[in-house]
């Protein structure tokens, strides 16, 4: 069990603002369009420009800022606000339109993750029987005295949270000072442990439970393949579907480990504490996760790929292809979305290439002057682009030189997956299905409310507090009130 596992940001929900209405942009000259785009997106812009990392002039940040400032001066204030208002309105409308879709696109993976954890907890004994503790929880709640138990669990939770805080701050500091190599190494190491070691343990327990004999060579081949494909998908590139599947698997494994090794009451204390910490870390002016998100947006980079689940979904991608036969039939269309050709002159190449340019233009309305030209150049194509869902799969590591990509869609930290699953898994470990079901629904509703707030406030929000508080409240009230009531009813077969 490594310390670094705790640093999964339990928080980041970023609603992408990149679906900037193209009509507004097109109406103006390139420079103006830059400003407007920037304005509507600025507070929480999440456009990805992979190209920035390597391809752009030395300091893309500075340059774009310069350009923006100059252009801003050129434009009158009135024009700007009017255009911005129009842009915002349209943007809002479009966002609402796909809002429900996005909610479902997060519901499905969260539900899958929780279901996996619940089914494992209920079927495989290993994850519910006590066999040792983490070093972060030195107090083992072995006493029968309630006071001591409470004290123990609070102390454990305090230690766990301190570790999480220290790790998060460390990570953010490293990020702030651009120690990308170190962070990459760290993330790769922790996912390596998860994918190889934890999945090996998991496989062993599954086989033991179902009494299946298997030889070591087969296991070695299985684990090797599983782990290697996972590493490639998470840290480099791979089909979005596979990447999402791996992220879910990793979260589930992590949640199972926590459920196994955390003492009973400590789990609940940790859940509450972590959601409070989440609230602070994301919303306070100097909260580390807020700094992380803001820095990432400032630098126009994706947040670490191993830590975030993106809903820029495969379904939407297929819809895009089937909606537009022209695009589907053209080899360049899909290629420009999925394939990642070596960078360099890529952008130029794509502008000359009909379909590809369309994709580039409609997905990215450039943020810098250099790319402004591209947007203007391919504006004609973009006009014909259907306003339909246009999402580009998968964040890639910042080192991957690639064409600019946009991500619409909502991002949810893997930490959220982990802690949701811990809550539901813990509820199911007591063997009562009504509590499990209640927690499940409570978490989904909490997530729904969080997303509603996200649509209202349009900035990164902590995803844990509402869901976890709902979950905890429903857990305790269900196990204390509802279950006895329902048991009394169902034993007499009375229906409500």
């Amino acid at each position, binding site marked *: 069990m490594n310390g670094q596992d705790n640093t999964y940001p339990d928080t980041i929900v970023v609603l992408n603002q990149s679906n900037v209405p193209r009509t507004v942009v097109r109406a103006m000259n390139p420079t103006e369009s830059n400003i407007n785009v920037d304005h509507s997106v600025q507070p929480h812009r999440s456009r990805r420009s992979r190209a920035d990392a390597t391809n752009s002039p030395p300091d893309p940040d500075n340059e774009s800022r310069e350009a923006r400032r100059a252009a801003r001066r050129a434009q009158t204030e009135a024009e700007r606000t009017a255009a911005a208002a129009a842009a915002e309105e349209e943007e809002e*409308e479009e966002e*609402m*339109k*796909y*809002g*429900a*879709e996005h*909610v*479902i696109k997060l*519901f499905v993976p969260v539900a899958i993750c929780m279901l996996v954890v619940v089914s494992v907890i209920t079927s495989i004994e290993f994850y519910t029987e006590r066999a040792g503790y983490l070093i972060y929880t030195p107090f083992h709640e072995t006493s029968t005295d309630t006071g001591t138990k409470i004290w123990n669990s609070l102390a454990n939770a305090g230690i766990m949270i301190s570790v999480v805080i220290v790790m998060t701050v460390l990570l953010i500091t490293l990020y702030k000072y651009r120690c990308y190599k170190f962070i990459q190494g760290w993330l790769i190491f922790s996912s390596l442990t998860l994918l190889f070691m934890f999945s090996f343990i998991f496989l062993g327990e599954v086989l033991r439970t179902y009494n299946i004999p298997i030889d070591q060579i087969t296991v070695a081949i299985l684990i090797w393949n599983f782990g290697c494909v996972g590493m490639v998908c998470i840290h480099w590139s791979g089909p979005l579907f596979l990447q999402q599947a791996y992220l879910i698997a990793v979260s589930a494994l992590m949640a199972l480990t926590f459920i196994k090794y955390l003492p009973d009451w400590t789990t609940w204390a940790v859940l509450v504490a972590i959601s409070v910490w989440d609230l602070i870390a994301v919303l306070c002016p100097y909260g580390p996760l807020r700094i992380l998100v803001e820095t990432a947006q400032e630098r126009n980079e994706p947040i670490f790929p191993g830590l975030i689940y993106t809903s820029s979904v495969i379904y939407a991608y297929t819809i895009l292809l089937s909606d537009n036969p022209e695009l589907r039939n053209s080899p360049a269309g899909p290629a420009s979305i999925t394939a990642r050709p070596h960078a360099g002159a890529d952008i130029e190449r794509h502008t000359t290439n009909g379909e590809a340019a369309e994709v580039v233009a409609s997905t990215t309305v450039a943020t810098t002057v250099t790319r402004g030209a591209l947007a203007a150049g391919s504006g004609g194509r973009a006009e014909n682009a259907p306003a*339909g869902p246009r999402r580009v799969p998968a964040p890639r590591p910042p080192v991957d030189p690639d064409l600019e990509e946009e991500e619409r869609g909502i991002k949810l930290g893997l930490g959220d997956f982990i802690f949701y699953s811990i809550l539901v898994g813990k509820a199911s470990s007591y063997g*009562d*299905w*009504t509590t499990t*079901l*209640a927690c499940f*629904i*409570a978490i*989904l*509703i909490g997530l*729904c409310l969080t997303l509603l707030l996200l649509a209202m406030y349009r900035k990164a929000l902590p995803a844990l507090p509402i869901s976890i508080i709902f979950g905890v409240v*429903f857990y305790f*009230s*269900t196990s*204390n*009130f*509802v*279950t*006895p*009531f*329902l*048991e*009394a*009813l*169902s034993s*007499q*077969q*009375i*229906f*409500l």
Partner: protein
Amino acid sequence: MTALSFFGCALTAFGPSLSFFIIFIARDPIRVIILIASGFFWLVSLLISSGLWRAFIPLQDKLAFGLAVSVVLQELFRFGFYLTMRKAEAGLQMVSHDEMYKDHNIAKARHTLALVSGFGYGLIGGAFTLVNVLADTLGPGTLGLITDNDHYFFFTSAYLTLCFVFLHTFWSVIFFYACDAKKYYLIAAVVLSHLAASSVTLLNSQKLYAASLGTTTVMLIASAIMAFVICNGSLRNWRTALRLKSSPRPLAHVVEDSSIQQINTLST
């Protein structure tokens, strides 16, 4: 045997719901959200009623009291959900003007909304009442399905769950319509029939299965017909719907359009 009884009961109770979900709900994200939201409302009502049941310690043995409280609370929350949905209507309208969902636009189709929310209500309710029973069918030492002639416990539970899921669905359709059209006697009818249906299941503990199952089934059919008529259904468009079987538009939409007009004329 355990696995057989588990799947038998599970599919009896939730098989129709499952196909309803797949055909009618799953393809529209908004419907899924409404389903879960209304389930959540049901859950909150259950929470409060069981809290009250626990609080009144002298009445804990009398389940009829808990039942009555719960039914009243459920109907109150149904009304609460109705109000919420009406408040959210503007938002829903905005959400669903997507071309993809044009032909089954939930904000336009009030009955669809009622249907989906009622289904969510019933589904979550059914799941909560049956889930532990189902888990018991799998467990060690389960009584048989058929061998024990006096206790068709699991099967009757499953069947009653099935009835209640769809009773809730139809009740919601009637209830929402009654609220829209301000027909208060219909609201009263829904509350009373809910109370009646639940009270009839009190007979189960005396093994009077014929009475409870029969009454519930009759109520189910009656409320189905009533809901169908409320949605402007008639024999004629029933036949039309059957003839249009190959078209992707499900029955509810055939009915929808004219009923919206009806509501509009009622409200003006």
